[in-house]
């Protein structure tokens, strides 16, 4: 038991997950210490105290933006005159290419998420919770549905949780399948049955969210951290991080690496440890040329960046974003233009069609990349692409989709420009 307790303290999110990744039943979860955090919160802490612990733990949003969870919660009106009902929404619409961390958490330990939502809802005074689940996550949906029933039967959800005044209903909503639904305000529109276009901010969801009511939207992994913070305290959580950021993070690696997969490691773990120790480095015969550190919508980094710590600010200073902390590795036998084109195709497909730079800019960028890849590119196209990346930059678009989509393009132009030029001069793809 000591070993597993230690593991739980080192890798709180995944330590309980069984090797075959089958879902933990309520009993198994409870035996592993589950729902202790909820009991602690509901029976011994006021909502304010829960909020304080989360703030003290310096938990930052795991969806990619890294915004302080405690701060986000604090914008929710919670006084006696605050509007009701208030909502907590779990963003489990994990559609970032190369990212599959939430899937593991929901498929294998669904109660952890439910407990996290229950504690968070208690802190926020939210009486209704929604889980907005990616359309393709059928297995997660089944596991969550079962866990919801178990938790309801056991009194962890429903009316008067654990005999307290607090009540919470959680609905599972499976998405119709659009990347934009991962954007929290588009998610809310979709949940209301409207077209999944983002909303203007301000007003932020905490003030005017789902159905116009105060709403907090948190990423699935963020919410999974909450039970452990409550169970073990903010200090413990702070001590987990190796760098400036606290807690652990589920890191992933994809591409031609020896062992693609997911690993829970402390925040601030150097990228090299994830790439070499966890993923086992490149598959035989492949050389790394670069990698996207946090999913498809982040800037490329180069092998020289491997020793950077996986902290929000460290990666930010290197010119990229930690995003979902899922590495996508580019090797020497893959055409970077084709890779960027493939990503851009995805983003152009997934644009919601609301604002001009994204809706009409991304298909244009894709068209240019197609031309270059097909050997019909012109040198001035590279200038056009570079201009487009600035054009779609942060602040110029309605939401973060297009700026994210521009990141792999702009960094590829920076780091792999000669490859683009070779396509143009050779009138074809050198990798073909």
């Amino acid at each position: 038991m000591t070993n597993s307790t230690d593991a739980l303290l080192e890798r709180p999110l995944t330590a309980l997950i069984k090797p075959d990744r089958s879902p933990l039943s309520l009993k198994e979860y409870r035996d592993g210490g589950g729902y202790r955090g909820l009991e602690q919160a509901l029976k011994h802490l006021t909502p304010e105290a829960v909020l304080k612990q989360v703030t003290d733990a310096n938990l930052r949003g795991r969806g990619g933006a890294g915004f302080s969870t405690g701060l986000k919660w604090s914008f929710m009106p919670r006084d006696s005159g605050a509007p009701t009902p208030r909502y907590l929404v779990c963003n489990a619409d994990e559609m970032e290419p190369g990212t599959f961390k939430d899937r593991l958490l929901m498929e294998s330990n669904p109660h952890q998420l439910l407990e996290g939502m229950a504690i968070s809802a208690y802190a926020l005074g939210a009486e209704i919770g929604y889980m907005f689940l990616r359309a393709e996550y059928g297995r997660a949906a089944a596991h969550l549905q079962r866990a919801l029933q178990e938790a309801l039967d056991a009194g962890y959800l429903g009316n008067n949780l654990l005999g307290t005044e607090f009540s919470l209903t959680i609905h599972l909503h499976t998405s119709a399948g659009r990347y934009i639904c991962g954007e929290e305000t588009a998610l809310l529109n979709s949940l209301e049955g409207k077209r999944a276009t983002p909303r203007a901010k301000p007003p932020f969801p905490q003030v005017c969210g789902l159905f116009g009511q105060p709403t907090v939207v948190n990423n699935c992994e963020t919410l999974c951290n909450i039970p452990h913070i409550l169970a073990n305290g903010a200090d413990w959580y702070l001590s987990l991080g190796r760098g400036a950021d606290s807690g652990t993070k589920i890191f992933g690696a994809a591409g031609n690496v020896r062992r693609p997969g997911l690993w829970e490691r402390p925040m601030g773990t150097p990228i090299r440890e994830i790439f070499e120790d966890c993923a086992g480095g490149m598959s035989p015969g492949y050389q790394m040329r670069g990698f996207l550190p946090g999913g498809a919508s982040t800037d490329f980094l180069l092998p020289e960046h491997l020793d950077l710590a996986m902290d929000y600010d460290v990666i930010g200073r290197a010119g990229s974003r930690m995003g979902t902390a899922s590495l996508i590795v580019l090797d020497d036998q893959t055409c970077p233009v084709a890779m960027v084109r493939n990503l851009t195709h995805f983003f152009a497909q997934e644009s919601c069609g609301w604002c001009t730079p994204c809706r009409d800019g991304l298909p244009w960028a894709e068209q240019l990349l197609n031309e270059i890849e097909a050997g019909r590119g012109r040198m001035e196209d590279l200038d056009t692409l570079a201009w487009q990346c600035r054009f779609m930059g942060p602040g110029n678009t309605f939401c973060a989709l297009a700026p994210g989509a521009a990141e792999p393009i702009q960094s590829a132009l920076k780091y792999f420009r000669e490859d683009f030029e070779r396509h143009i001069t050779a009138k074809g793809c050198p990798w073909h």
Partner: protein
Amino acid sequence: MATIRIDGQDYPVEEGQNLLQACLGLGLNLPYFCWHPALGSVGACRQCALLQYQNQDDTRGRLVMGCMTPVADGQILSIKAANAVTFRAGVIETLMTNHPHDCPVCEEAGECHLQDMTVMSGHHQRRFRGRKRTFSNQDLGPCIGHEMNRCITCYRCLRFYRDYAGGQDLHAYGSRNQIYFGRFEDGTLESVFSGNLVEVCPTGVFTDKTLAAHYSRKWDLQCAPSVCVHCSLGCNTSPGERYGMLKRIQNRYHPEINGHFLCDRGRFGYEFVNHPERLRQSYQRIDGELIPCSAEAAVTALQQFFSPQQAEAKQADANSAVPKARPIGIGSPRATLESNWALQQLVGADHFFSGLSRADETLHQAMLSLLLSCTHATTLEQVERADAVLVIGEDLLNSAPRLGLSVRQAIRAASLAKADAIRVPLWQDQAVQIAGQDVGHPLYLLHSQRSELDNLARDSVHASPQQQAQLGFAIAHALDPQAPAVAGLEPRQQALASEIATRLMEARYPLLIAGASSRSRELIYACAQIHQALVRQRGKAKPVGLQLVFPESNSLGLALLTRHQHENSLDDAFTLANLRPTRALILENDLYRRAPKAQVDHFFDQLEQKVVIDLLASPTTARADLLLAATSFAESRGTLVNNEGRAQTLFPVFPPPREMAMSWQWLRRVAAADWLQANPLVEVNDEAQLLAQLAASDPLLAPLQALAGTDANPDANPNTTHSSRWTTPRMPHRYSGRTALRAQLNIHEPQQPHDPDSTLAYSMEGLPVYRRVTAQDPGLPPLPFAWYPGWNSNQAQYKFDQQRRGLLGREVAEARLIPAKTVQHPTWYAPAGRRADQNSEQRGEPMSPALLIVPQPQAFGSEELSRVAAAIAARTAPLRLWLHPEDGQRQSIADGDQLVIQLDSLDILLQAQFDPGQAPGTARVTDGMPPLCGCTLPQYSRIIRSGANPLIASDRPQELDPSLQADTHLNPHPNQEQEQEQADD
């Protein structure tokens, strides 16, 4: 006031608006697409980007969207900064990747906002080499053309059609750059406001199909400020003409009435002006035939008509031994104030009849007295701010659609308070809607059937007009115990009356809406009672809104002219004709729409001589002995009084052909005859004099003086049309081919027509329409069309919207005739059922199995002039008898059965249609449609089943009645005339 600095210059601007609004208001050019002054901001197109600097030391700045950024004191901004300019050009270039280069064949070109913005943003060279996306277009019906390839996805169409106007059948389909704005399948757009898509769309996706049928570019259209003639609201319009043909109607911004939007009847009803049935010259009856004659001959004949001696001398008829009495004049609620007044002067007030049935005449007079007793005049703009609304006996989206649209905005405005509380700027449309999506609005409807607004109402009652009135009186009693109580109400009705009374009392600005649609005086009395109770209880300081819907464009004007007269209804004219030999002049009125056919026939049979002045052939004109061609609104200058008592001038868009004249001009030519020397009409030489006489004739009409005075051209030189400093051109400055238009007839260029009566010229020359009006100007001139340098589309008007709003009350083309007074109603009305005259209102016996047939005005098909316009006719639903299924079952009628109803002893064949929203015991028919249009309604009628449902194909087995197989009803739009014939059989 805040001060903002734009490109180094400080400007004082109103706080609370966004930067885009502020810039446009300052006359600065900042391009945009998705913003609209009435629809607010959503930040989708990213076109209105400008640079905002944090402080004086900030040299980089950051891009902000003008439409999404509130004005704040001390902001430092740049429109001209290179970053912003490049970004805006980029937005256009990106939009253009999918926009076809089809301007030469696009109906929008020349007034295309996208063209204007493209030029403004400076994008001219395209880098995109890919294929443009293509869509299939839809057939959206007779009014709106659809060309989706041109779409730039600004979402304005949806935001207007769905969010603003409540339409359901237009939506966005697909996503990314494949978003498709259309219907689920081909079909006519259902909303009565669909025409606004033409103006809301910044490019040529939604275009005016009626314009396309006889197309001219905007720059070739001669325009004038005009007023819609298709209902009583008096929406301002800008009609366009070329080659003597009226080509289209566009909205003309009026901040207090129509704002930016018109209804489809107002926009597409204009084609009656070009109709083949239009009377284009005069006719005289010779040997029983109407034979065309010259205007001169017509005037001579008209003079003879008015001169008994001459007429007698020429007539060898023995009957004329008795000296002839003066002829009678029958006026019209759709003729201008001038024409009605001229006729009234000519024949004398005692010989002037309103041309309305007695029931309608008294109804309109009751409405006028209610308006005159009002403490507060209510504009459509104020309607949009009402926080509790009670509508009595009106289906607004059909009887006065634009008012219905304003009520819809009042409901939307309920969310504004919530948005304001969480400090969302009220122009941030999406957030306001999200914040307020669950906010209800106390809208209550009393009507005889369910209507479209019911979906938004907090509660609605569907009952007979009398029961509605009962409830109305009960509401008044609940408000003020002094108002007589109503006996015998059901508990639910009693509770509802109390609830409505409470909501009206609580409201900051409660609004009552009633009108003539139900043809029930009781409802007006009930409305007056509630109004009086509300004013008494709330005190004079708190306003109570009131809007009364009149049926026609000048109903109120006519009511004002005849309000001192007694026995001046059409029924009285009928009586007079029964008593003595009578000659009549009928002014712009089809009497067969006013009274039962038998009565009118009898009247015409009795008349010795009938002169008709009208613009469209009608059953009445067919009976004329002398028929004079009147000008339509498009060729007339005149005054119409809208339902709030606002007299508005409409100006001729183009000079009428020589053979036509405004009705009052025909009459004026007679007035020159010797025997009429003493007539005031003799003093009248022009429009201004006529208005001055009109104004002098009645204290209530005195404000009309303003229309006569300020607008007349002080420096007019009769020899030229454009020498004055105040002349405004009717033609855009790029008007082409003026000298060549008639070249196939005569190569000599004719002199441009002269318009001494207004400051408008039939010319391209004169003061630009967009000039900024200053305090030195004599008044706010009406605009023939919207144009501003660089802004060819109608969006040009936003450039001076704010300025015009600031100058309200200085318009030269309108005057308020009904002063806000603090007069109390003299007495309380006794609730319905207790007064002696109540039975006169609903004819027939309420005995089983009779149903009360009630009239329902339809947006398409009820109004006399618009119903002949092709686009409106195509959207007119066939005439049906709508009744409650229970009433049908009780009388063994099935949905779709052929029925015969008896109205005014006339058998009328109609198809039954069940509607669970119809009040039990009542059945409705479309008002104003042949063969029903002259019938007295409401009226009790027995329902006789005459045949089974004539359906020939159905999913379900259906027994066919062989006798009906040869019938015309296989046609989905049965020919009304044939129905009439069958009925007569």
